[in-house]
């Protein structure tokens, strides 16, 4: 158990080596003069495009494998905020875009199932609680479903900005 906790803490503290942590208040007070849209396009085949706007939940990774996840805020075509981390766009090699439908469904069902777990555990039904645990896990896993874009090899990314 303590190893799981250790790895969970280690995993959550991993971030981009050169990224800067930004004060949340500063971020909220930041006035954006322009709006941007991030476009991810397939390099081959049907050249399908995906438009990603602010407040979309994403996870970005760099070449070293470090990652940051959270809500996207495009400050400029060179810099984005992911959660509270300020990241240079040129540093990013991979973007995972979470599915809102799966995330919402997973949170609702996982929350309900988790509550049922605790309820059964509290009222002396540990076996039943243990039986539901995989179901809770499956529901929570739904929240992690995402579409992955490799913006170095398979996709290209660029920004649209206002006139």
């Amino acid at each position, binding site marked *: 158990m303590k190893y799981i906790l250790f790895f969970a803490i280690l995993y959550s503290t991993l971030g981009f080596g050169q990224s800067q942590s930004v004060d949340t208040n500063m971020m909220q007070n930041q006035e954006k003069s322009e709006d941007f*849209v991030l476009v991810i396009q397939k390099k081959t085949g*049907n050249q399908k*495009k995906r438009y990603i*706007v602010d407040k979309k939940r994403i996870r970005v990774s760099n070449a070293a494998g470090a990652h940051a996840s959270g809500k996207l805020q495009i400050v400029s075509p060179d810099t984005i905020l992911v959660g509270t981390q300020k990241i240079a766009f040129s540093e990013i090699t991979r973007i995972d875009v979470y599915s809102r439908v799966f995330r919402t469904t997973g949170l609702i069902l996982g929350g309900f199932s988790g509550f049922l777990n605790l309820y059964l555990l509290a009222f002396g039904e540990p076996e039943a609680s243990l039986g539901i645990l995989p179901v809770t896990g499956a529901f929570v896993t739904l929240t992690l479903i995402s579409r992955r874009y490799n913006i170095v090899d398979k996709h290209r990314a*660029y*920004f*649209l*900005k206002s006139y």
Partner: protein
Amino acid sequence: MKQHTISNVCHIMLLSIFMTIQFVVQCQSAENSPTLCNVQSDSVQTPATEKVLFLKKNSDFGKAAVVTENRTIKVMTKSGQKLKGIFSIKDSSTIEINQQLLSLDAISYLKVPRKNFRIVGGSIASTVTLIAVITFAVSGVPPLGAIPFAAASYIIFSASKKYDLQTVYSIQVLRGGPN
């Protein structure tokens, strides 16, 4: 005789399922097919600028949406005029629908059909129609049970997202392209 009829119905059902799958695949490929100006390979250059309509909720917690060019939209102007058709963006404040120029400031609300709903609705409609025709051909009974399904498929097919530009959303044109 009865077995022969059941076999025929099974064949026709399989055919209808196959046609539905084909319809869905065609819809998706039509959706994904690039327009002429976007066709490119490694040897062909991408157009320098791409223009989209950017709709943003006025509230701080509001989300934004993007409407790409060459999509069918419905527009209601502030003067009460209704327009429907494929639109293109002329400049930062003007769009064109059915050869009619329209200022973005003059739009009261905008309706954009939902692509996925169109695919689902179309699939249901084609399946229901096929089954109804088959049932009528085999048994001779009018397929009245298909009417609710047809209505449901039409409702799903015509589902659209409405953007109120007077109070809820603000609209602007964004442009850019790959370097």
